């Protein structure tokens, strides 16, 4: 799960990290009032779950409250990489002497949280890691013992030489680590971490990604979810316990299991089609899941054909068949449906479908080819 910059800053501030907070506005008038309250120059920042906001024009400097209102008016409603900006953060503009990067990720190669710090801040760290790895210091943390004080100190010395700044930074790193662990994050970064002309160290921007597997035990983090910044179909899917990701094609896919779902999308492409989505209905046998899956897929007007690919190991294929029959009675589905079922109770499933006017196939490749052809309007 992604959270907004202002929420990430709140997590940091709660640990004691010096971070100029600002306030969130949803209208230009609110932005003006906040800027007036803060006094001085402000930065108006789009709150959306994508990187590269600055380059897209979603971050603007304003020297007066009136200017903050105009900049907010320009940014609110803006489309950044397919997401509409609903909120802007009005933050005090800081005088910046230097910019650094500090971040911690759950690294699958090290199988541990790994720090990355760099005196070259305000940048895309992945790009620096690829092109100029010497500018980044990495350090793995043994999670059984935690992030040790001397490790924080060592990393801080890679960024600054002034002893006061090193001490302040070591403290910030420990606070960031604590926020990372307590938020169940898979990534937590401050970028940039700045020094001011008077020597203070402050966090100006922050980003957290949360491990979805943590949310069951962190209700206060789950509460940070902003559904208005997510795809409505994906919100619907999550509520129905399905994993759904919208893509750009026209063949809607309903599959059990993540690996088979990806392989099915690939096969659609292999046979000359374009998948409209990734959708995993999971392993359990519940006709309602199929109903919800069809509801979600049919909200996409681009979908020209729907393909079911079910390998019934644990999933009972007769349950899936019942779900398809129920769903097609409940919703008016205007596009053709191709059904491939193999495995547990397949004979019963085929019978249920036949009685309701559906033909079921058993071969994955044939079913995919048929769905691709139907989506192109080539077959009946």
């Amino acid at each position, binding site marked *: 799960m992604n959270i907004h910059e202002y929420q990430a800053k709140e997590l940091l501030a709660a640990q004691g990290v010096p971070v100029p907070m600002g306030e969130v506005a949803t209208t230009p008038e609110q932005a003006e009032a906040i800027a007036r309250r803060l006094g001085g120059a402000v930065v108006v920042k789009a709150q959306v779950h994508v990187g590269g906001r600055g380059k897209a024009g979603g971050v603007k400097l304003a020297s007066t409250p009136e200017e903050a209102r105009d900049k907010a008016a320009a940014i609110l409603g803006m489309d950044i990489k397919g997401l509409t900006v609903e909120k802007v953060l009005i933050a005090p503009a800081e005088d910046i002497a230097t910019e650094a990067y500090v971040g911690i990720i759950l690294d699958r*190669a090290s199988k541990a949280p790994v720090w990355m710090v760099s005196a070259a801040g305000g940048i895309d760290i992945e790009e620096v890691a690829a092109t100029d790895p010497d500018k980044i210091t990495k350090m793995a943390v043994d999670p059984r013992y935690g992030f040790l004080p001397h490790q924080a100190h060592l990393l801080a010395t890679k960024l600054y030489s002034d002893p006061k700044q090193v001490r302040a930074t070591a403290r910030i790193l420990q606070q960031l680590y604590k926020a990372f662990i307590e938020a169940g994050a898979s990534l937590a970064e401050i970028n940039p971490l700045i020094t001011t002309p008077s020597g203070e160290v402050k966090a100006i921007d922050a980003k957290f990604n949360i491990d979805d597997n943590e949310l069951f035990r962190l209700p206060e983090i789950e509460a940070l979810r902003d559904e208005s910044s997510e795809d409505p179909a994906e919100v619907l899917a999550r509520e129905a316990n399905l994993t759904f990701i919208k893509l750009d094609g026209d063949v809607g896919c309903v599959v059990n*299991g993540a690996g*088979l779902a990806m392989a099915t999308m690939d096969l659609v492409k292999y046979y000359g089609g374009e998948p409209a989505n990734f959708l995993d209905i999971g392993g359990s046998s519940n006709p309602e899941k199929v109903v919800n899956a069809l509801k979600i897929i049919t909200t996409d007007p681009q979908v020209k054909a729907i393909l079911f690919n079910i390998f019934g190991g644990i999933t009972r294929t007769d349950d899936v068949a019942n779900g398809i029959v129920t769903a097609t009675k409940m919703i008016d589905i205007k596009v053709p449906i191709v059904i491939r079922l193999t495995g547990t109770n397949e004979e019963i499933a085929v019978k249920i479908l036949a009685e309701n006017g559906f033909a079921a196939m058993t071969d994955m490749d044939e079913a995919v080819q048929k769905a691709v052809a139907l989506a192109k309007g080539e077959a009946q």
Partner: protein
Amino acid sequence: MSIFIDQSTRLIVQGITGRDGSFHAKQMMEYGTNVVAGVTPGKGGQTFEGSVPIFNTVEEAMKETGANSSVIYVPPAFASDAMFEAADAGISFIVCITEGVPVLDMTRVRPYVLDKGARLLGPNCPGLLSAGKSKVGIIPGHITQPGPVGLVSKSGTLTYEVVYKLKGAGIGTTTCVGIGGDPINGTSFIDCLAAFEADPETKAIVMLGEIGGTDEQDAAAYIKQHVTKPVVGFIAGQTAPPGRRMGHAGAIISGSAGTAEEKLQAFRDNGIAVAQRPLDVVGLIQEVL
């Protein structure tokens, strides 16, 4: 032979009275797995299906039954502690089926289990099946038969699809292992490849990977150095967009790393036959057998 489990496997089912645990315990027993005990705290003294004793703790179950392996079907909130408990009790092979274990938990569980000298498979995996001998986990028994192919995969149903297609062509398996799709887990592709290489009955190996991380690339480099048996590889997620988690927590392309193309290239560079479609695995295996 087979890898990790066979007729000598004496299995404990942690969470045997739960919905999933009880269903799959029966399925495993029907397949012929020697389920010697169940563990559910508070239900010690009862029996499962009239024959399998239930204990309150893994330690007690192990002492009373001489178990050597354990499979975990408990909810995510309890799965980490169940893995710790199995390792503490001295179980040497632990399989965790549970999906949704927090990754931070796994950063602690994994080194703990390894320090105890145990092997962990999973979490978030379908388990494994040694054809005709034993199955631990949720892989349906009827989809494969004994034969010469060793299969290792990150996926559940994609594994079923491939072994079922192999069976359709009359080709069986020694052991099918699902290592799971989480970013941090107990057993890697390389662990399974090493075991298949050492298993005299395994004549060829199928490796089913997916997008995200570098496990497949690492495995490809290992194969070139250490595996003499022919390997056929497939990668799911060739059409997946970057930055989106495709179901499995580990199946995510970050930046330009972890793409299917990068992995397929690593396969080709290291002498692994690449299947474009799941179906192509069958033909490629027929060629090498």
